[in-house]
């Protein structure tokens, strides 16, 4: 028998159903792998007792022939999703020790379908970052290394723990969230598949808020099919989130094998940015050739406001963050630092509880919303936001079914390499992904191959609103053409 942790989620599901192994065996194999992989710092909290309890309950259901769609499948949960009675920190000192008395809708949906929780995954503080280096609990080390080097690389962010854990086979799949690229960029950096669904596809209830108009949950998994299985369970209407769409969730797994024959795929010329490495351009053209060979028509399109998406995002997202994070005041939960009076207590609490990146963004957000600057910054950015969305609407109105782009402008970099002096250097990681959040569209990152340094590169497909199915179909074509890339051998914990 192959190592149980090397199975895809789909194969593990089928193996459990056929009683080739039990949910407890599968769960224990992952708990053992997690223990070995502690040097990666992917998990902030491990919940082995709960995991084995859930797995036992799954085995009992399977014995009665009552297995559900994710029965007995061990998953990792990004520590942005509130989990009842299990510490939820959002990667921040200000929430250290917080044990939610409620369960997020997304995780509740997963447990409803029989999944097993292994623990909570590391992330950038409040999901603000592209390398997992802003976590108050230390960076995550990627399971990937450059051949012949032991330099520690970043797994990307903000869902860095999720991507690292999936690539290192510590869990079959993981939940993640994406406000500007936080699912797709780490998926691309780690050779995994990540989908950010359409805004409103997954409920945001019980997920710690960063920028509410852009935040969306989605899965990171090892194959397109696994991501499809995960999203079907995570998504769905929720009366507790007024922005969650009242739409039925399709059986995404069926769409995986649908193919791309007759689809029109657009390549936006504005994504050819100055300084982009030649191998990224080559991979992009290769992706287009794969889709063409599978029967799609490739057309060049124009999304003229692309270059303004990232600067507009760095006004809109911090503005929303400054408002959302106002709740961390040392009164209702988390850290409190006493002061001379109530204002002094707020200021000291937030100074001690927030890290540098979070402070920067809260301050930028406060500034662009303040009297005298609102029109020049925030209002202008929201007008440009309209133009960015209009670009996509026009492309889709002209008959394009999906859009193909590179997922990131580079492969993974080393811990400590970027953004130390200038925060904008780090922000540029999201240049290809952030437009999708601004337009509320679904986007998937699928591994396309390795670069010259031996590190994974991803391709991104962007779809029409609520048409995740086309992304799974086209993503599968790329996965088959590229061949599933070999994930790194377990060098950690030896």
């Amino acid at each position, binding site marked *: 028998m192959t190592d149980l942790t090397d199975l895809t989620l789909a194969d593990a599901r089928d193996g459990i159903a056929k009683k080739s192994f039990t949910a407890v065996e599968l769960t224990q194999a992952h708990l053992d792998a997690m223990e070995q992989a502690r040097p990666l710092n992917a998990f902030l909290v491990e919940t082995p007792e709960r995991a084995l309890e859930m797995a036992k309950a799954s085995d009992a259901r399977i014995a009665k022939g009552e297995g559900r769609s994710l029965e007995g499948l061990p998953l990792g949960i990004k520590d942005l999703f509130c989990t009842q009675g299990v510490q939820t920190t959002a990667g921040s000192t200000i929430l250290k020790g917080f*044990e939610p008395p409620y369960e997020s809708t997304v995780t509740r949906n997963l447990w409803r379908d029989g999944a097993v929780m292994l623990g909570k995954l590391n992330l950038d503080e409040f999901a603000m970052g592209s390398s997992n280096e802003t976590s108050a609990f230390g960076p995550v080390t990627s399971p990937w290394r450059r051949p012949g080097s032991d330099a520690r690389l970043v797994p990307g962010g903000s869902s860095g723990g999720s991507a690292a854990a999936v690539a290192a086979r510590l869990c079959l799949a993981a939940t993640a969230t994406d406000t500007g690229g936080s699912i797709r960029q780490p998926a691309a950096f780690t050779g995994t598949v990540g989908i950010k669904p359409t805004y409103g596809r997954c409920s945001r209830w019980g997920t710690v808020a960063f920028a509410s108009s852009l935040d969306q949950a989605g899965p990171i998994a090892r194959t397109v099919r696994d991501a499809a299985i995960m999203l079907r369970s995570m998504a769905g209407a929720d009366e507790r989130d*007024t922005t969650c769409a009242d739409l039925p969730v399709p059986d995404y797994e069926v769409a995986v094998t649908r193919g791309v024959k007759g689809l029109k795929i657009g390549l936006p010329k504005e994504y050819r940015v100055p300084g982009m490495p030649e191998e990224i351009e080559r991979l992009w053209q290769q992706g287009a050739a794969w889709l063409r060979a599978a029967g799609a028509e490739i057309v060049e399109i124009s999304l003229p406001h692309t270059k303004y998406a990232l600067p*507009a995002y760095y006004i809109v997202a911090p503005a929303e963050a400054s408002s959302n994070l106002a709740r961390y005041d040392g009164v209702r939960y988390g850290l409190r630092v006493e002061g001379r009076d109530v204002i002094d207590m707020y200021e000291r609490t937030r*100074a001690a509880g927030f890290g540098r990146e979070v402070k920067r963004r809260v301050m930028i957000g406060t*500034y662009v919303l303040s009297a005298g600057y609102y029109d020049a910054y925030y209002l*202008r950015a929201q007008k440009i936001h309209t*133009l960015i969305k209009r670009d996509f609407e026009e492309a889709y109105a002209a008959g394009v079914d999906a859009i193909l782009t590179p997922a990131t402008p580079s492969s993974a970099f080393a811990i400590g390499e970027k953004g130390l002096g*200038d*925060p904008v250097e780090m922000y540029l990681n999201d240049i290809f992904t952030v437009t999708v959040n601004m337009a*509320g569209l679904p986007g998937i990152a699928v591994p396309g191959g390795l670069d010259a340094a031996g590190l994974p590169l991803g391709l991104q497909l962007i779809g029409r609103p609520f048409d995740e199915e086309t992304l799974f179909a086209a993503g599968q074509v790329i996965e088959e053409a590229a061949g599933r890339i070999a994930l790194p051998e377990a060098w950690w914990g030896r």
Partner: protein
Amino acid sequence: MSVDQTTVRRIARLARIAVTDEDVPHLQGELNAILAFVEQLGEVDVEEVEPMTSVTPMAMKKRADGITDGDRADEIVRNAPATEDGFFLVPKVVE
């Protein structure tokens, strides 16, 4: 546009984040780097463009105005740093 050190302190006050004298020059540099980056938005013609309010055209969901939850004071205050008899405790606010 760029911010001076007085403005950095004013923003920090508005954001309720205490800053030290050492923090201010760093923050000033970082905030100005971000503001320089967003400066390019000034190139775009936004005449007669409506600002975005919602990315998906959806009507706000409504429900009957009824009690759907409650009677959980203990759970609600359980994570608070200081409580008494189901209330949150804060430093004296009114003299």
